[in-house]
């Protein structure tokens, strides 16, 4: 036994410590490998944002349309401004806007717009109109 009994390094290691160490090594290699593969296989693509309507329902103050914004590229977008429009035969009836702080690469973010008119009876379009780079 060593002079400092508080020092765990100087006790004889149990096999489980080596096992933990090796499993950890494997886990870290997996993480680093994943990053490395990502570096080699993907190239930087500017954010590409696509909105998809999730649900539309009547609420106390109007009609609430919940939508999902997906960023299909490999770079994140910040301050994403989304504009939703209700139109009837190319005539704009109503417009609503919402801003997302971030939409990460390959990820989705949810938001909602609230209209006075029922979107079910009109043509609804939701699209991102601008963003900044984080």
């Amino acid at each position: 036994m060593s002079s400092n009994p508080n020092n765990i390094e100087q006790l004889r290691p149990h096999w489980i410590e080596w096992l933990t160490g090796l499993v950890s090594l494997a886990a870290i290699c997996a993480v680093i490998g994943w990053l490395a593969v990502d570096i080699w296989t993907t190239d930087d693509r500017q954010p590409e944002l696509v909105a998809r309507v999730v649900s539309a329902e009547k609420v106390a103050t109007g009609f609430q349309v919940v939508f999902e914004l997906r960023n299909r590229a490999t770079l994140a977008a910040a301050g994403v401004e989304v504009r939703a429009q209700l139109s009837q035969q190319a005539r704009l009836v109503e417009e609503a806007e919402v801003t997302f702080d971030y939409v990460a690469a390959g990820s989705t973010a949810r938001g909602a717009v609230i209209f006075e008119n029922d979107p079910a009876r009109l043509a609804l379009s939701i699209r991102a109109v601008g963003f900044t780079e984080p």
Partner: protein
Amino acid sequence: MASTQTRQTTRTDVDAFLRGIARGFAGALLFSIPMLMTMEMWFLGFYMSRERLLLLLILNMPLLLVLSHRIGFEHTATWTQSARDAIVAYGMGIIASAAILVLLGVVTIDMPPDQWIGMVAVQAVPASIGAMLGRSQLSMSDDDDEDGDNEDEREEKPGTSYATELFMMAVGALFLSLNLAPTEEMILLAYKMTPWHALALAVISILLMHGFVYALAFRGSHSLQQDEPRWHAFIRFTLPGYVVALAVSLYALWTFERLDGMAAIEALLVVIVLAFPAAVGAAAARLIL
């Protein structure tokens, strides 16, 4: 005569206990003020998922219990005493958080209960860990004479094992993670960084962890035996420590709903960013606790 002696003993115990309570509050404040004054933490209190908050609150109990058994108030011996002290620390965490939030005007009377309970609950976790650590860390001066005995006791206790060492790293990692995971900066940093940056950060984190504990001659440094190769401790302690830091970071980010809807590779970058402070916290915990 006998009764006087008994009374004196009791009196001393009460004094020591009250002093412990005061130190606990001091610790709770010292460790939780950065979080109490962080905007994101207040908002989390009312929007975070109740299931995840509940899980955090429940997981905090065994954490405090083991922490208490290891270092806690009055060098507790039995698990019953440890449990009592863990509950006291938890209670102090809740009271201290609530008091400070009221004092700062974040929690007000007209707020619905669901909101302020959530706010206090999420703050109580780091505050209770602080209360527990505060008790042990702020009381070094008058416990110095006991240190020799403690080390002998520790050696006999089965608790100071490899598992305890990993547990202490997890506590240190959790502590810094809870501080930083709620902030927007973690996500922003991950977005600004390329995978190359992340790779470098992961390697630096591991080297820093190893360096903190073995290379720098801090108080409580763990020295290696002469005949043992350097990489032994690296495999047995540093690498598992970094995995613990990664796991704790992932848990903290998941709890605070920072990874929801995020692609796996992006989530990995955020975890690596948070694992950097977590790794430093884990290494520091090995030295301090």
